[in-house]
């Protein structure tokens, strides 16, 4: 807190403003205006949000210069920290890649809008330049004697206490409103586990574990399909990745030596004579 006060004390310029504040203004104002123009010209919403955060930080520094250290801190906390991050969050939710459409729905709308904006600038600056302002009093004395935060607290909890209570109601209403607006009603009843099991049986898929790969006399790796009882190879017994790569051995190739051995068992003498046959 002390260092923050020192910082604002360094930034808090004399009244009328001195050279330090003039220099700060001519650095801060172009940065802020260029960043605000990023809002106008950025194609993507993320870039617009980031340039908006830069504007907010610039305004926070401006408040420090204007003898408002509390407001400067709140500006950075609330706007840059909370509001802009909320914006970024929604941008991520809605889709970062969603670029703005270039189609003009109303003909000549952009031109008219830019002309109106320039007209607004001329109007406001003309009004400000014509106005006669009092000699700048400054808030240095107020910030010294009761202190900035103390004085704001006096005002909020004394003169504006009713408005303060109303803002409390407003914040609660806003929180409720956000909850109501983003709440999604469940249209169908939640499916129970029993229902899920019945659905799986009804769709008729394989419920048991898949068959193991084939085990043959000279080969039992996972790339050999198992044989079904009728002698055909089972597709499901081989990993589908191996099948997609074409690395599956044919079952006949590995089953053939087994068949030879079995036939040797069937005819041990190999002469076709009947007497030695042990079946």
């Amino acid at each position, binding site marked *: 807190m002390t260092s923050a006060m020192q910082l604002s004390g360094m930034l808090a310029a004399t009244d*009328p*403003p001195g050279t330090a*504040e*003039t220099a700060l*203004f001519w650095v801060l*104002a172009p940065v*802020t205006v260029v960043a*605000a123009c990023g*809002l*106008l010209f*950025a194609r993507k*919403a993320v870039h*617009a949000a980031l340039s*908006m955060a830069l*504007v907010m930080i610039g*305004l926070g520094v*401006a408040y420090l210069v*204007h003898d*408002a250290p509390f*407001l400067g801190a*709140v*500006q950075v906390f609330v*706007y840059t920290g909370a*509001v802009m991050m909320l*914006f970024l969050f*929604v941008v991520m*939710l*809605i*889709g970062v890649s*969603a670029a*703005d*459409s270039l189609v003009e729905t109303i003909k000549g709308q952009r031109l008219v*809008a*830019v002309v*109106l*904006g320039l007209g*607004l*600038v001329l109007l*406001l*600056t003309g009004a*400000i330049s014509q106005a006669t*302002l*009092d000699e*700048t*009093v400054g*808030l240095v004395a*107020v910030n010294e004697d009761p202190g*900035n935060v103390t*004085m*704001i607290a006096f*005002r*909020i909890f004394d003169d*504006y206490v009713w408005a303060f209570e109303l*803002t409390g109601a*407003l*914040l609660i209403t*806003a929180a409720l409103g*956000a909850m109501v*607006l*983003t709440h999604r009603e469940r249209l169908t009843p939640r499916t129970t586990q029993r229902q899920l099991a019945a659905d799986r049986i009804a769709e008729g898929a394989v419920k048991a574990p898949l068959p193991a790969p084939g085990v043959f006399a000279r080969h039992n790796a996972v790339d050999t399909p198992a044989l079904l009882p009728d002698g055909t190879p089972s597709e499901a017994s081989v990993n589908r990745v191996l099948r997609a790569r074409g690395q599956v051995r044919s079952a006949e190739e590995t089953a053939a030596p087994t068949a030879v051995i079995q036939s040797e068992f069937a005819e041990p003498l190999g002469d076709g004579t009947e007497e030695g046959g042990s079946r």
Partner: protein
Amino acid sequence: MRPEYWLYLSAVLFAIGATTVLVRRNAIIVFMGIELMLNAANLSLVTFSRIHGDIDGQVIALFVMLVAAAEVVVGLAIIVSIFRTRRSASVDDANLLKY
């Protein structure tokens, strides 16, 4: 330099925010334009508070920040719920009330 230079800055920022609202089609960027206008008004409030030596301007700026925070919450919730039903954040697509 007199403090009204800050008022000029505030005027320029306000005009940029208003033009953003008029030009852009993305609802989020339009919303950020509104925020920029609120901030520009805050800057002029704080500047006037300094010129007159009265802290009331800062208090009002604080209230504006509060209301803006509440407004952002509701506005973004509306944008999200519109996006959920229409799959679009463009202000041109939400036109059913026209007919």
